[in-house]
């Protein structure tokens, strides 16, 4: 395959993992985060420590990235999940930036200059494998009792609480799982680039992830998949007008918010059964139309 095309597919696969996690937090539990790049950074650095310094296999690095990111998010969640709406957003922004600035100042891991020489373990097959695992796990989670409880928290926190749902617990669950996804994505990114630098995980990256989730549609896993693929490819197609790419991006975000806030697939899921149902509906509509026409013909009316 064309190396350039393969590179873009790999990047969109990596982005997808982080987006899936954020999709759970934002689309299903209704919490916005402007700090998920921080969890990616934690994942990238912890995996790099495992594979580069301890020379352990990549699978252990991935596991470490998920566990460390989840652990840190648990601590952050304990401190901030009690905050309401806007303030939680701001807190995640603060943590994301703080993580980046700490790594910037920590010379042991390369500091702001970055850390080169990470083994290139990321390949197309392991990205796609993790993508599939990520989607399947998430799809099962959101359809379980836990997933429904998260949706209840998103829709109306107070009502969910009154109905006996431990809202704090479900928000925490969504945060920790989404951080683990982001950590794995960071680990994959580090071992794909073979170089990591705190700058790669700035607030802009966090915003980008949130934008992909919104673009794809809140509360839709297939929307997130579509969003991650489209929004990673789109900038590449717009390379010719590179300078204007982010200008258009900014306008598009405002446009979506004003015109179609549900995103591409908001609340709608593309699954094998939904496709089957859609085809069946079309068939039904067709046969019904044919029946009607036959009937009309029988009654001696004009058939147009």
């Amino acid at each position: 395959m064309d190396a350039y095309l393969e590179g873009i597919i790999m990047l969109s696969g990596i982005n997808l993992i982080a987006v899936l996690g954020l999709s759970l937090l934002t689309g299903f539990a209704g919490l916005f985060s402007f700090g998920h790049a921080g969890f990616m950074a934690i994942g990238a650095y912890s995996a790099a420590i495992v594979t580069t310094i301890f020379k352990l296999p990549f699978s252990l690095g991935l596991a470490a990235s998920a566990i460390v990111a989840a652990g840190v998010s648990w601590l952050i969640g304990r401190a901030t999940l009690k905050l309401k709406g806007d303030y939680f957003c701001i807190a995640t922004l603060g943590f994301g930036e703080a993580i980046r600035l700490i790594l910037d100042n920590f010379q042991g891991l390369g500091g702001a200059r970055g850390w080169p020489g990470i083994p290139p373990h990321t390949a197309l097959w392991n990205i796609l494998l993790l993508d599939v695992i990520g989607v399947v796990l998430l799809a099962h989670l959101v359809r379980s009792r836990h997933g429904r409880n998260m949706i209840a928290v998103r829709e109306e926190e107070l009502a969910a609480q009154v109905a006996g749902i431990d809202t704090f617990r479900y928000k925490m669950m969504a945060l920790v799982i989404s951080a683990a996804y982001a950590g794995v994505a960071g680990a994959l990114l580090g071992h794909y680039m073979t170089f990591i630098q705190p700058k790669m995980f700035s607030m802009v990256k966090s915003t980008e992830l949130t934008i992909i989730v919104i673009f794809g549609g809140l509360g839709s896993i297939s929307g997130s998949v579509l969003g991650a693929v489209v929004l990673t490819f789109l900038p590449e197609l717009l390379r010719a007008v590179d300078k204007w790419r982010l200008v258009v991006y900014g306008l598009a975000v405002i446009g979506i918010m004003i015109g179609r806030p549900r995103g591409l697939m908001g609340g709608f899921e593309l699954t094998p059964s939904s496709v089957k149902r859609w085809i069946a509906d079309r068939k039904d509509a067709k046969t019904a139309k044919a029946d009607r026409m036959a009937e009309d013909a029988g009654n001696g009316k004009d058939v147009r």
Partner: protein
Amino acid sequence: MSQFLQQMINGLSIGSVYALMAVGYSLVYSIMNFSNFAHGGVIMFGAYFGFFGMTMLKLPFIAAFALAFIGTAVLAVVIERIAYKPLRERSAPFLYFIISAMGASIFLENIIIATIGPTFRTYPEVWSRSSIAIGPLAIGRLDLIMFGVSAVSLTALVLFIDKTKMGKAIQASAYNMKAAALMGVNTDRVVMIVFALGGLLAGIAGVFFGMKYTVYPQIGNITTKSFVAAVFGGLGSLPGAVLGSVLLGIIETLVAGYLSSQFRDLIAFVILIGVLVFRPTGIMGKATEDKA
């Protein structure tokens, strides 16, 4: 001791510019209950307006300065009309406002990069860089003027909000937008005035910031710190925003002076997290209760 006083002076001067920026965040928050992240972009435009007013149009400083703050006031209102008004009319959840603001912020930053380019630009010298000596202390002319202009503009803002009819309408809308509208306040115009005021102060802050440092498209990263200051003081509270900014400015310069300049940026976010964890309403913020 004199070193400490010197640091305090430097901190006050940068804090006063933070205050001009932070007030813009707080004003919008008090009326519309969301963090207007596009404000950083407006400040950056202010710096550019002033810069090109002085270099390309060859305007005297005062005229370029006026051009900058009028320009940003208009810009802030235009952004409100395009990016927030449709959401306001739909009474969309606050998150949509934040995301729309993020979009506007990305747009503003990149339109500058695409048209003018990402280079750093230095303002022409207006006041001599030599400082005024008071005993062992040295105060930069620019710092002194910055502090003076900030103090005057903030006082003017407070007087406007306290003494004029429009100011009362702003206060009423901040308290309860719906009730204010029922009492005959034109809330649409209140929102417009609030954005214009925020934009005005953003223009002033942008020009001074550009003069003290340089002008470049990512100025927005520094304005994030003024947002931190607004949260520190309590979002939605104007005195809080000023107090938070001055404290943040002083803490930053003290940290840079006594610990390490590398921790300068970090301390802002540590404060942010600390405030949110222990006292989310900040120093002077009003506690809002969850309305079912």
